[in-house]
């Protein structure tokens, strides 16, 4: 939903360089979905991205905390020196959490980009050409949709054994998680295919490839940006699950890795809640943010979900005022 609406701001900002920042901000505000839930969710996700971008620098250079240093302060509860306490090796949990945010988000982003590219390609081609191509691609999509994803990912990651670092796992998750997106893009392409401007381009003798790239693809951007974000979050959840099972790269610091080590070292039994609660909360809040955006998109696309609520609220207010009037 973002890109299409923000298009008009681009030429403006080109002509007047001075007010560029303000214009972009204004454009951004206009491009944001007009739904509080979606905005809150996007805000939370933006905060995570900010932490991932500058957090490690702040924590390591400004606060002087290290996620990997082994210190004699073993299993310390939260204190001023260690805002979230320390692990069994004496490493700082807060530093691990912040550095882990970057790792987890990067890995999730790589997986999300791979799965989104695949889903666009498969959905677009299937929806545009229709016929046999569509039935074959549709059957493959449905097969990937009903096959349980996690066991497949576990098997693949089990063979790889952390080889190639965290990005191989991202590749695996991206390669297995595209089916949902492909479906929504196929549906969207189907409805675009019969529009006048596509027909127009075809009558002008444009090649199919060009029509798909120039006429159809830009109109898919809203759907693409929505699925990109959803698959970012689901990929992060999947990566964390894998790492929690111990099939990740042991040398990286990430949320799943923190939970894995906490589980391995019996943090639960020694009551070290500050070790395993923060990464879990980080994952949950990010997931909830995605849930909110999803919820908001549902409300935007299904007017009844919003309309009904406003109506009831209005009705409730009316009855309340009516009650007051009756009392006085």
């Amino acid at each position, binding site marked *: 939903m973002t890109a299409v609406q923000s298009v008009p701001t681009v030429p403006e900002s080109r002509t007047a360089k001075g007010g560029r920042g303000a214009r972009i901000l204004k454009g951004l505000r206009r491009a944001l979905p007009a739904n509080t839930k979606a905005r809150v969710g996007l805000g939370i996700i933006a905060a995570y991205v900010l932490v991932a971008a500058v957090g490690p620098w702040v924590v390591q250079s400004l606060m002087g905390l290290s996620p990997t240093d082994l210190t004699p302060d073993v299993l310390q509860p939260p204190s001023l020196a260690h805002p979230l306490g320390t692990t069994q090796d004496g490493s700082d949990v807060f530093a691990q959490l912040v550095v882990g945010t970057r790792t987890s988000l990067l890995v999730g982003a790589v997986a999300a980009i791979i799965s989104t590219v695949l889903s666009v390609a498969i959905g677009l081609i299937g929806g545009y050409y229709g016929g046999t191509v*569509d*039935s074959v691609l*549709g*059957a*493959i999509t*449905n*097969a990937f*949709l*009903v*096959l*349980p*994803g*996690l*066991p*497949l990912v*576990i*098997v*693949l*990651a*089990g*063979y*790889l*054994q952390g*080889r190639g670092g965290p990005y191989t796992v991202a590749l695996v998750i991206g390669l297995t998680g595209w089916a949902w997106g492909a479906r929504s893009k196929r549906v969207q392409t189907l409805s675009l295919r019969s529009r006048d401007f596509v027909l127009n381009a075809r009558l002008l003798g444009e090649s199919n490839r060009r029509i798909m790239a120039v006429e159809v693809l830009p109109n898919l951007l809203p759907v693409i940006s929505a699925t990109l974000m*959803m698959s970012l979050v*689901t990929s992060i*959840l999947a990566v*964390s*699950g894998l790492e929690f*099972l*111990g*099939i990740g790269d042991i040398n990286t610091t990430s949320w799943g890795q923190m*939970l894995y080590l906490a*589980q391995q070292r019996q943090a*639960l*039994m020694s009551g070290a*809640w500050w070790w395993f609660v923060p990464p*879990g909360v980080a*994952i*949950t*809040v*990010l*997931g*909830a943010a*995605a*849930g*909110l955006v*999803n*919820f908001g*998109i*549902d409300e935007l696309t*299904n007017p*009844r*979900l919003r*309309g*009904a*609520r406003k109506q*009831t*609220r209005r009705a*409730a207010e009316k009855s309340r005022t009516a009650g007051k009037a009756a009392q006085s």
Partner: protein
Amino acid sequence: MTATTLAPGGPVQAAGKAAGRRGGRRSRILLRRIGFYLGTAAVAITLNFVIPRLMPGDPASVILTKMGQKEQISPATEASIRALFGMPDTSLWQQYLDYLGQLAHLDFGTSITYFPTPVSTVISQGLPWTLGLVTLTTVLAFLLGTGLGILAGSRPGSRFDSVMAPLATFLGSMPYFWVATMMLLLLSVSVPVFPSQNGYDLALEPGLTPEFIGSVITYGTLPAITIIVSSVGGWLLGMRNMMITTVAEDYVSLAEAKGLSRWRVLLSYAARNAMLPQVASLAISIGSVVGGSLLAEAVFQYPGVGFLFYQAVINLDYPLMQALFLAISLSVLCANFIADSVYVFLDPRTREDA
């Protein structure tokens, strides 16, 4: 998260539009779905064949070396491992045929973790635990979530709804393994109400005795709560959103105008139609519930296939891992097919045109 965005129609909506009479239509849809699921099963079986052959190195040699460290390997064992995991010298087609023959005899090789128990025996011991746990919790979560969704969706914006909808979003966002860890912390470590590990009291002899059944229930409670807590939110939100849409339909208003009782209107008019997408999404969510329960089982060391899977991965037990992948995938496909068939019989549209 998954259930909310579902478009009604299930995974096999790509069906064409052949017109037909009442009975013929349904059986044709069912036949097409059987075809689809057989095809998907073939995809799963082929993936299982392709993956070890695509991986770097030679998994078959790794497995044979590992087994050789434990005991002398018989030529029969070596042959079955080679058939399952790759023979560099033979053609791919011949390998595929050998592999299929191996599956037809349910010979998945020997487990490394539980050497020298055959993989098929190991899995057949674990499968009932997971099947029982996942089936029971999925049914409970579905009923609970759908019921609460009916209540929340019948009066959108009410106090109940404004508590339930955000709560469901939040619960649905929590990863299974995290919920499992928190359950352990709250109900097993801090307040020792439930045991933290295993599927039954190991001091008891497994059998149909009251003591054993009781211990299965006590030991299964935490894993069950975990799966229900993690999956109920999706059902609740899905049903709530569908209810809000149906409650605004004209036929519901008509039923209200006729003076039917609130519950009758809600249940037999609104909820009955709002249920269809729920049943359709049942088929798709089974896969993710099974995936989540694998992680939960690993946390609780519950003796089902999830824990076996975990051990197989940790111990690089490729024969067990591959066979578990196949067993889980095929079970999920069966469950999907059942859910899909229920949908076909519930949806009145399958009588006319789809």
